[in-house]
């Protein structure tokens, strides 16, 4: 089912049963982490089927490792294809990051140096994923804690060229833009203006925390005021986009997540000229 230009929430296993139930909460759309559902069968997949029957669903990957020098794992691509065939996602997304090397999966979205050679590798991997899935994917900007010494372009430029090379879309995570700018000395507003507007097909919002003088993309809190302001500016400038609230640690009650989504929906509705959002 197509993902509406509305504010949905990330579906985590703690809330899976509630959203699979017949009296499930009202939400315009949901997003799952694809890798959470790569099991063969059992209750988790059965509940996912019940969710799919009730909500438009987006599949957000965290393990494809688009930045791997080793290339993509064909077995993992096959597992994802099987899941996509089952749930028919409205959108498929992954990260501008890597997580696998030398046969080890490190379960983190690790950073890439933005150079021509790395662009060649990531573009080849994105193209291979799109060929395999038979459709366009969105690529999300990561949160940065370190910067490499030998980079030849900024991240916004790298993403822009990746879009030009592969036809992929951008999943714009505004919290990540804010966190990365704070940690590596960038300008969040300038970054947002540098991206190709038309390619931005989804927006993520999440909370972060502060540790050791850095902002950490912990997804364990409400969206910060600064990120809300960047979001409102972005929507005013580029128009409405499907928007998602992510919350992965210390996951709160569903009502808190829906409250955050409502705050995003208010901003989307304002952009639509005060028209109330169609339920």
């Amino acid at each position: 089912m197509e993902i509406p230009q509305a504010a949905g929430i990330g579906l985590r296993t703690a809330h899976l049963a509630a959203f699979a139930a017949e009296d499930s909460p009202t939400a315009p759309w949901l997003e799952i982490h694809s890798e959470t559902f790569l099991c063969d069968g059992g209750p988790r997949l059965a509940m996912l089927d019940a969710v799919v029957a009730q909500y438009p669903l987006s599949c957000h990957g965290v393990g494809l490792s688009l930045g791997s020098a080793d290339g993509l794992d064909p077995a993992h691509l096959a597992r994802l294809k099987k899941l996509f065939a089952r749930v028919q996602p409205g959108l498929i997304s992954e990260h501008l990051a890597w997580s696998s090397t030398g046969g080890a999966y490190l379960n983190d979205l690790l950073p890439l140096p933005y150079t021509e050679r790395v662009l060649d590798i990531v573009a080849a991997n994105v193209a291979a994923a799109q060929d395999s899935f038979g459709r366009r994917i969105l690529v999300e900007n990561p949160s940065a804690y370190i910067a490499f010494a030998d980079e030849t372009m900024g991240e916004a430029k790298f993403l822009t060229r990746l879009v030009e090379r592969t036809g992929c879309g951008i999943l714009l995570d505004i919290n990540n833009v804010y966190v990365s700018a704070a940690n590596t000395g960038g300008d969040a507003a300038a970054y947002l203006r540098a991206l190709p507007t038309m390619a931005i097909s989804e927006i993520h919002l999440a909370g972060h925390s502060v540790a050791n003088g850095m902002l950490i993309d912990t997804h364990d809190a409400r969206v910060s005021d600064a990120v809300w302001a960047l979001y409102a500016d972005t929507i005013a400038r580029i128009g409405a986009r499907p928007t998602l609230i992510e919350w992965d640690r210390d996951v709160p009650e569903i009502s808190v997540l829906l409250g955050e989504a409502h705050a995003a929906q208010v901003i989307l509705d304002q952009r639509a000229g005060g028209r109330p959002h169609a339920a």
Partner: protein
Amino acid sequence: MPLELRDMQSRFRAAVLGSGDGALGALLRADENIAARVAVHRHTVRRSLVEVLAAAYPVSRRIVGEAIFAQLADRFVVAAPPSVPQLSAYGGAFAAFIAHADIGQRLPYLADVARLEWARAEAYFAADAPALDFARLAALPPEDIETTRLHLHPASRLVASAFPIQRIWQVNQPEVAAVPEIDLGVAETVIITRKDHHVATRAIAAGDRAFLTAIANGGTLGEAADSAVRIAAAFDLRHALRDHFIAGTFRDDAQQSLT
């Protein structure tokens, strides 16, 4: 010198699975805070994978305590990180790791309890299949019953131990506040089954163990019953089958004949 991506990624792996930024630091933009920056990733990698193991092994964790478990799990993560991005499949080798660790030597039942926990995790995520019921077996001509071959359901797991692993598992559930004394001299074999999306764990007698082992090895119903009776003269086939049909131990191959 151009940065080789594969080289960077292997340095990064060494840095997050090791303790310093080592060879990675040379590739990063100069900064007084490099160690703390790399540590953000080390922390995410290690903590998230320890949490995956904690979710799969809640009873083992309760037995050894949170701090010792975290230490043990972290050593496992460093020694054997996941090979595929599918965390429901990560941690099957943890029981063997426990068996060789000091804590596994001090608590000789711990590795078997961990095997039970992993079997439960596997059962939860195993493929769906219809369970064989009594009516289907009863519909067979009586002369075919002996030569019928049953198949374990994809979610069924048999775990044998020299320790009372089912009892240990039971008394270490969250709702049990005070763990009672347990006689560790009792050997238990456990059958894990899944029915209606619920994973159940049940200790079985020696005869039933021989029966299920024979079936798992491809024996006919007659052969399996014979192995059971050799171990336990009082083995009651009807009784055993009834319990297994209730639990959903066997798979119903609707397309295949049972013989």
